């Protein structure tokens, strides 16, 4: 009885091994095709993004605002609100991953829009806290001088110093 079981098991194993051999090739082939399609979709997305930018945010009116965190000490940014020309154009609540990304040096493109050439008032407000739970918040104003080309402004938040700095790029 035991021998019969052993033989059956061996046969089953042999079949399983063969099946695995075949499927291993299938897996490799499929994986390569998936890599190809990923590459193609990445290229396609880049083209589409360029088209979108050209169509929706032409360079003569484009203004883009970026948020970065300057803190050396741990600081958790909770929310940022941006008012451009007296209108709230962005209000962002940060997830843990986003906070972590900002802390590692990532820069968030928080708003892209269109404005005429000229001066535009910008107000920024942030709320955040340190890991110990101490709350920080600050407001700051800035004037965006929009010229012919696209305008990029970095909003650099120093949370623990309740400070916001602006940089034209």
């Amino acid at each position, binding site marked *: *009885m*035991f021998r019969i079981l052993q033989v059956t098991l061996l046969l089953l194993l042999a079949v399983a091994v063969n099946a695995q051999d075949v*499927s291993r090739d*299938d*897996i490799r082939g*499929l*994986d*390569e*095709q*998936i*890599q190809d*399609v*990923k*590459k*193609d*979709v*990445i*290229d*396609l*997305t*880049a*083209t*589409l*993004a*360029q*088209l*979108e930018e050209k*169509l*929706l945010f*032409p360079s*003569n*009116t484009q203004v883009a605002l*970026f948020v*970065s965190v300057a803190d050396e000490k741990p600081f958790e940014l909770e929310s940022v609100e941006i008012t451009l020309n007296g209108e709230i154009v962005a209000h962002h609540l940060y997830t843990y*991953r*986003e906070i*972590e*990304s*900002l802390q*590692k*040096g*990532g*820069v*968030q*493109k928080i708003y892209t829009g269109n404005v005429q*050439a000229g001066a535009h008032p910008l107000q920024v407000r942030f709320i955040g806290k340190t890991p110990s739970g101490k709350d920080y918040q600050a407001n700051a104003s800035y004037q965006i001088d929009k010229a*012919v080309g696209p305008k*990029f402004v*970095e909003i650099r938040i120093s949370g623990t110093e309740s400070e916001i700095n602006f940089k034209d*790029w």
Partner: protein
Amino acid sequence: MRIPLLSAFSGVAGVSLRALSFTLCSFSLLSSAAQADDEKEELRDLFFGAAMYYAHQENYFDAIVALDNELAQYHRLDEPELDPFSTHLGQAEFSVGDLELSYRMHREAGRAIEAVLKGNVSQEVRNEAAYRLAKIHYHKQQPLNALHALEMIEGRVPLRVRADEQFLRARVFMELGRLEEAVELLKDLKGEESLDGFVEFNLGIAQLKSGEEARGVLELTTLGKRRSSNPVDQALYDKTNLLLGSHLMEAGELELARPYFDRVNLEGPFSNRALLGAGWVEARAGRYDRALVPWRILQNRKGTNEAVQEVMLAVPYAYGKLDVHSTAAINYGRALDAFGREIDTLTASINSIRQGKFLEALRRKEATQVQNWVVALRNLPEAPETHYLLDLMASNDYQEFLRNYRDLNDLFERNKEWLKSLTAYEDIISARRAYYEPLLPQLDEKFRALDARIKLRMEQRDQFSNRIEQMLVSRRPEYLATADEQEARLQLLQLHKEISRNPKGFTEETRSRLARLQGILDLRLSTEYHQRLTEAYRHLQELNIEIEKLQTIYRSYVRSRQAATHSYTGYNKNIQRLRAQIHAAQQRLEMLMARQGSMLEALAVEELERRRSQLESYQIKARFALADSYDRANELQEQREDERKIEQHREAQPETLPEHNPPEMEASETENNLQEPDEVEPHSETQTVTPPENSPAESEAPEIEGDKA
């Protein structure tokens, strides 16, 4: 028991290393990112920072798109070295490779890194590239290719990847069976903070595999004695203990094995197998009462776990060994109930997968938002019981399939959104066309008139400017005469001409009057020349300002005019082409998703069927064992009944009876007790002799109603 415990051990070196390699792969990404962060490199390109914002969130697709775009723009520049992005170029190129690797685009990652290797870069950069290429090969389970890549490294390796490179080299050696070299490398790496625990684990395994049994055990024991509040670290220590405990039990070192199982955290992912192992150590030593302690704990845990299901048979088996047959029968009965329920769940799960519910759940939005979504999806109606798939899902291949499937679905959804966007763009374009086209001809007409006036003014300005320039070289007071003075000057000139043509026709008084008038005019022009010149220059500058304003308006108009035209012309063909490309990509994505999905389904069904057949086999064994327990319980009951009758008989008969039972009764009792273990179930004979190798699940089995027993 044999299969789970053996796989627990034999798998460690192979499977766990692969699992570790996966962990370490992402770990190295993170650590390099952290190190890069530590270096506090100032951001010189805003868009590089924006790409890294995605990368740090493991949003690989968007990060790759952004970085590819930046790199392509950079390489299109005439003098790229002047662009601020050049500061981040090296990091960007490596990051793309890393991100592509994380996005499971090994070939692209390989190509990107090979491009760096072929480029004109320093040896240090080349070494880092070679290391990264080796990592890709290792990740693709091609250790020989990984070694070839590592052999390209010459001289100094950048500090931030030096330890990782050595660790990778050691693991490659282990994969290739060059264990002594691996051991040497790993010994050197001990104390490396970023690889703490992983080095010791691999060193212990390498030593065990290379025959340095005592050293390997010592290394792993030291590691296993550690404690950490970090669940990842603790899981490694638990795994180490489980590995060693199983290894020692297999080697028959039962007394040594038990503490290792005891050290495994009771709440950790390896606790079930540790409790099972701890019980088997005691059972193998014949201490069934002590075996019951961990087994009873395990018995009350999640019923879908393989160890828990096994222990459902192990517990009554131990009770049987302790001659508590009624309790054994109750437990066999419970096991049978549980197995029956689980078999139904498994059958329903298999049907659910075959109906496509599993893939449907994987495609839901929560899949990317909820941690451990695959486990959580069991809560959805008609979704399969994913707890049975945990082991399968922990395997690298299956993880890869799941991620690929989700990636494909994500790409499919993104493309769907793009298709919607393209339709919206076409609407925008037609709205713009409808607005601008009727306006532009009138605007152009007005513009042309304005343009003519601007040109005239500019010509006048140029003329005026030329005159002033001439006056700076030679004095020309007449240029600065007012309109009246000019007129007077011309009249005087005319009169002078007439006098010279006909001198006798004019009186002396007229001639002297003319000369006086000429003198007055010349005097005025001459005396006021400097003041007038200064004023003229000032006027020219004012005029220039006005002209500049006109030109600004002119340029602004031209730009607006162009922008208006560009806002709706030249897009249609582009959009049509892109739409066709998206449709083609969607077809490919659908086809690949179907293939990947069917692989996922097939493997899941295979796993569930395996577990179902295992449970069915447990069920059969439990039924036999239950019947046997009943028999034994009945026998005991009968014995007790007989004893009671004898007692009654004794009481009824006043004369003294012999103190001992008759010899035939003694013989029957002894025989029953001796035969008991072997009569549990015919197949269980060999398995009960070596419990750790043959699970009770494979041996005995009950079918009972608990209350009967």
